[in-house]
């Protein structure tokens, strides 16, 4: 399954700086599966996630061949990449892609798919599988093998995830949660009695509305801006026992270890009756802090991956991913892997004009927490 087409060039480019033990492999495209390949590459280079998956693989190998599911297909693929003798090459994710298509009819066609939907589907699916396994393990007490113990192990890509009090027990928390889950709190303040009602919800990613010539910082600010509920849209205050005007805002209560930001570049345009791609220029910094948090706003994040959508419309186009590995940026385009310079990142910001020849736009951004600012 290994084809060494592009390998030598990348190896030459990296020379002695080729990171010890790292593998850079392209992924074969089975007809419009770039949405899948781009997300897989990002997840592979999301080090805490990769390490958990490889641990899971090691632990479950012993148990013997359990029933195939999306998790086993993904761990097989990851271990296949990481155990390659060559440093570079191409690998076929055939079994994984077949499994995805089997599992979800959405992804079954050869149509262009949405990488963000796929990421969401994949993470939720993994959580479901881990949850089922844990339940089965609890039902049969002799096996308490893998998933729950893993969070205590070392995480190379940042500090180990602090366990938020109470979260561990209920609801069920997997290592997928440890990496990606954050908590939003929806604060509503009744304008009559001033009582603040807070409702928490968990998230794996933040979907942000975008504006022309703005920044991620600005989009996050808008995401948390105060909204007034009035007229038709009043708020039922439990204290006042009636509908009242209120102010509502979303804050981040628990920032995730891996912050995934999805830019809403595909927007339904009413008068067109269809989705349109917004090519807006939205600049994203290499480092980021969340100012819209409940407390501790100074946690610094560092950008480590970008899923890029190439094309003018939502229903066609191509996905590639940019990944930072050992301080080098790499460009993954299905089978091809190339080195790029960080200073070329601005190519993927978008365009300040409506019609532009540049159609490569940052679509999903992945930031990793660097812990408390020094």
């Amino acid at each position, binding site marked *: 399954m290994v084809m060494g087409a592009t390998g030598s060039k990348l190896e030459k480019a990296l020379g002695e700086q080729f990171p010890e033990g790292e593998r850079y492999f392209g992924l074969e495209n089975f007809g419009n599966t770039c949405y899948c390949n781009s997300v897989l590459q990002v997840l592979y280079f999301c080090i805490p996630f990769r390490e958990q998956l490889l641990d899971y693989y090691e632990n479950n190998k012993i148990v013997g061949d359990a029933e195939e599911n999306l998790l086993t297909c993904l761990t097989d693929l990851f271990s296949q990449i990481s155990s390659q003798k060559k440093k570079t090459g191409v690998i076929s994710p055939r079994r994984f892609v077949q499994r995805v298509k089997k599992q979800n009819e959405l992804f079954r066609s050869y149509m262009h798919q949405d990488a963000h939907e796929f990421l969401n589907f994949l993470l939720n699916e993994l959580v479901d599988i881990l949850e089922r396994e844990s339940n089965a393990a609890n039902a049969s007490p002799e096996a308490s093998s893998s998933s729950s113990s893993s969070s205590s192990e070392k995480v190379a890509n940042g500090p180990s995830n602090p366990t938020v009090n109470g979260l561990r027990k209920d609801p069920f928390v997997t290592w997928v949660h440890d990496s990606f889950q954050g908590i939003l709190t929806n604060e509503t303040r009744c304008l009559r009695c001033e009582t603040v009602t807070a409702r928490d919800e968990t998230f794996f990613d933040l979907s942000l509305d975008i504006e022309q010539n703005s920044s991620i910082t600005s989009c996050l600010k808008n995401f948390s801006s105060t909204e007034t509920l009035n007229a038709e849209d009043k708020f039922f205050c439990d204290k006042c026992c009636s509908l009242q005007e209120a102010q509502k805002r979303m804050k981040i209560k628990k920032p995730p270890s891996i912050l995934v930001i999805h830019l809403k570049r595909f927007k339904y345009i009413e008068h067109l009756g269809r989705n349109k791609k917004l090519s807006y220029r939205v600049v994203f910094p290499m480092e980021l*802090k969340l100012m819209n948090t409940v407390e501790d706003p*100074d946690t610094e994040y560092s950008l480590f991956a970008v899923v890029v959508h190439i094309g003018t419309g939502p229903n066609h186009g191509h996905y590639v991913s940019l990944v930072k590995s050992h301080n080098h940026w790499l460009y993954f385009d299905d089978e091809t892997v190339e080195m790029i310079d960080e200073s070329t990142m601005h190519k993927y910001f978008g365009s*300040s004009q409506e019609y532009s020849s540049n159609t490569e736009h940052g679509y999903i951004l992945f930031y990793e927490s660097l812990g408390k600012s020094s």
Partner: protein
Amino acid sequence: MSSSSAAVNSQSPSLKTYFKTPEGRYKLQYEKTHPAAVLHYSHGKAVSQLTIACLKERPTTQASATPSIPSSGGVRSAAARLLGAGNGSRALSFVGGNGVSRPVSGSSRIGGSAGASTGSGSSQPVANFDDKGTYLIFNSADTLFISDLNSQDKDPIKSIHFSNSNPVCHAFDSEVKGGHDLLIGLHTGDVSLRQQLQDPGRKLVAAHHYNKDGSINNRHRGRVAVAGSRCTCIAWVPEGDGTFVVGHADGNIYVYERNKDGTADCSFPAIKDQTQFAVAHARSPKSNPIARWHIYQGSINSLSFSSDGTCLATVGRDGYLRVFDFAKDQLKFGGRSYYGALLCCAWSSDGKYILTGGEDDLVQVWSTEDRKIVACGEGHNSWVSGVAFDSYWSTPNSEGTGENVVYRFGSVGQDTQLLLWDLAMDEIVVPLRCGPPGGSPTFNSGSPAAHWDSVCVVGSLQPSPSIRDVPKISPLVAHRAHVDPLSELIFTNESVVTISREGHIKIWMRPRHAESNESSSSEAVVPTASVKDRPTTSSIKNSSFSYK
């Protein structure tokens, strides 16, 4: 000039052609751009930067360090040559004798300055605009353009095409000895010094070419296969007797002397630790560059000298502002952005404050006396790409004392906005750390948190401050100035000039004042970058702006 503003309106109907401030309206006076045939910047390789060059006779009263002042006639002919060479039909007509015989004193320029500040004052004779000889130099793609600041003509009067590389930064000094005045930094790392803007007797060619094919950058970079690190910023050292510095994307700054030949062999010791600041002087006395400042291992995005030339500020990819004692080769202090790279920096003309702007969308104000951040401006919706103090603006209180109580500054961002800010140091509110959740600000009566009082240690780099500890300021005005992201702004005596990344320039005339334009123009009218706007004499202090 109603026709020109009509044209403005038709071009971008959603943009206003004025903005209001407490002292009055700023009006869009002129727009400048390059021919449409010029390629749009491809992937930002050539973000347009702006330099203002003032070609004018220098008053003899101006006791500057410059020894040999070219005769006014010479300057004039140089200007004529510069302008005429590009396009004969657009050659400006200098009114014979008008400038040469004019008495050289501050008051002699009232006419020109007042005429320009009227905004739409079409009654002003064109000759007077030309007389001032103030030119905008800007780059776009592979070309450097020169436009007349005071002409309503939208097109440049001259262009300089570079066949091998894109010009990326430039600097002009009207007072540099010998008349070689325009520096151009190229994408290849080459530096070109041109005399054409001032020296009358020479052809319009590069006088010197330094770091040809990026050679110095190559020599000590080991096996990293980069053909010369690109220039990112360039500046004359004020009072520096022809010394200039060039910042590069590889974290080095090279110091050159303009009189030395740039072709002599020059080598510097290898950089031992990429992360450490180190100054190396050239081994050979013939070498030009004469010194290499290794700042750190990332790009130097911008640099700026204090107006007396003693201190150098740099900002870069790592988000740090660093302030150096230039003569002593020493780091004085440094501090970090809230997050992300810093993109621009600028000094106040009294050297007390430094502005920075960057990828955290914030404008930061640093005190050089306390060696730390003193205020943080929130107002941009994207990265801040240009900052500048308005050294032509002053408050009523500043009369007599010579102390500025309120500083006016501006910023431009990739959100297409121009923001103006007032910094009143005695009104800065330091938030209390142990305040209620959400850090609601406490007013000046409350005692500022103890952690805030400390003055930072000399020579140290401070980490990012906690966002809730830094006093916040809000902009006085936020104006969507262009349709494209902006890259720079410059204050002149009569206007604010903004330029977009793609090389579109707008000139915003300052509000006109009912009371004497004379007093306002009694200050040095040289509209130059902030590094050069030191007051020439103590007696002329601007008193024209007064709140009513």
